[in-house]
């Protein structure tokens, strides 16, 4: 079969139940989602809607309680270099320099020293950290740390990049710049990105599709294509129109509860 006909990710009726002592939490109930190669998808919703759980299932960090999570038609059984996660709190190795953090994956894959160096140099250039190649994570700003985390995943040949509120802890200016850089990298490399956020604006700015999720139990409320041409202007009338529609879908859940 040709690659184009098989989606890179398929989530089929996935539910996830967590048991905490005598409490059961339905983190995710019957989620269905199909992602084609090269898409940029944002998962958005209030806390407890299961967006992070869904992302962690795609990463292979969690197994679904029922249903199936597939990549290229094969079940996702555990974390793999082809699926790279970018964590909100970076999760860089603090004892490794920027260079060695990015080289961690290539070294684990058993590349030769020369190949590792070439790969690391390429991705340090890509994220613009040439001057900080030998710095340790604690010497970097939040934005720089997240650049390292992105480079670390890309240096490992990840086809699918999973991002869990990656810019949530950054200041507004840094966040905007990283959003632009991420889009630029995505357009140049043909990656598939699944991006969790709680900001409607961030979702509409970045995504080709915005998946709105609602809590209690976590489920997918709607799947919305965003067709505004890029680069998108957050102040434009089209942008605001989409924001209004998605905002209503996101808050409909709360509305029901309040009433």
């Amino acid at each position, binding site marked *: 079969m040709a690659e184009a006909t098989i989606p890179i990710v398929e989530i089929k009726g996935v539910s996830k139940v967590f048991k905490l002592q005598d409490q059961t939490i339905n983190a995710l109930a019957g989620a269905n989602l199909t992602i084609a190669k090269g898409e940029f998808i944002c998962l958005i919703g209030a806390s407890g809607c299961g967006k992070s759980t869904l992302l962690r299932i795609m*990463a292979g960090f969690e197994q679904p309680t029922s249903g199936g999570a597939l990549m290229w038609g094969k079940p996702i059984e555990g974390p793999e270099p082809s699926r790279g996660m970018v*964590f909100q709190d970076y999760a860089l190795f603090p*004892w490794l*320099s920027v260079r060695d953090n990015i080289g*961690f994956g290539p070294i684990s894959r058993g590349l030769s020293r020369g190949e590792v160096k070439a790969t690391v140099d390429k991705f340090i250039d890509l994220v613009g950290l040439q001057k900080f190649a030998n710095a*340790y994570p604690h010497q970097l700003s939040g934005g720089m740390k997240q650049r390292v985390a992105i480079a670390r995943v890309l240096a490992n040949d990840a086809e699918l990049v999973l991002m869990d509120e990656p810019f949530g802890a950054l200041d507004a200016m840094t966040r905007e710049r990283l959003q632009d850089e991420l889009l630029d990298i995505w357009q140049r490399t043909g990656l598939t990105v699944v991006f969790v956020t709680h900001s409607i604006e961030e979702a509409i700015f970045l995504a080709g599709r915005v998946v709105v999720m609602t809590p209690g139990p976590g489920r997918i409320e709607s799947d919305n294509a965003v067709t505004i041409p890029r680069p998108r202007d957050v102040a434009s009338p089209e942008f605001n129109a989409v924001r209004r529609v998605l905002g209503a879908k996101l808050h409909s859940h709360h509305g029901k509860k309040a009433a």
Partner: protein
Amino acid sequence: MGTASLSAIWRRLKPTALALIVPLLLLAFWQVATTQRWTLLIPTPGQVAEYMGDFAWGGIYDDAYSATLTTHLLASMSRVYGGFALAALFALPLGVLIGRLPTARMVLDPFLQLMRPIPVTAWLPLSMILFGLGAKSAFSLVCLGAFYPILLNTVFGVRSVDPKLFEAASMLGCKGNAQFFKVVLPAATPSIFTGLRLGLGLAWFVIVVGEMTGVPQGLGAVIMDARTLSRTDLVICGMIVIGVAGFLSDRVVVAIGNRLLRWSPTHHG
């Protein structure tokens, strides 16, 4: 320009100057207390300084302790570093085991927590029965003193690795046992290092007890002998030498740590 270089000199000297305030105040108090005869049993700083010279180089009193400082210091150092090395040899692997394997933790942790409050001094009689009078007993007591801080900090270090780092490593292709050397050990080095530093400090701390086991040489032995001879000047000399030696040894460890743990924001001593 003159003032600029003066302030530069002050910046260099400030830490030392500030660190000297309390010792100098103590020295002044000691001087006043002994010259004002608030106590008759403690010699003056001058007398102790003079005796320290004799203890180190001889030529003043020429008694049994003249010019023996180096001998005693070396004897104590061999016990401190030997006992410490032995403690590290046992405590590091044991700590890793307890930290990483729940079964090992359940078997060993309650026992070790039970043994831990027993002071090294209390072990002295048993240690003399088990290892005899002399150096072996001294070694075992120093080793015991250094053991727990190394063990506990190693356990803490290997247990408190951020779980996200395991996830990050496994998604980057480093899985299973490879994570021990690539994630657990490096992540635990700051704690392990703290344990080693505390352990070495405690090895110096228990040296006097360790040398109550009938060894002829060593600073602890000197202090205990001087006590029975009512040679308070010698007791104070021994105390000062232990203090200074322990301090210098700690400085060396800290310097090594600063180099080794450049990456750690909390380890810049």
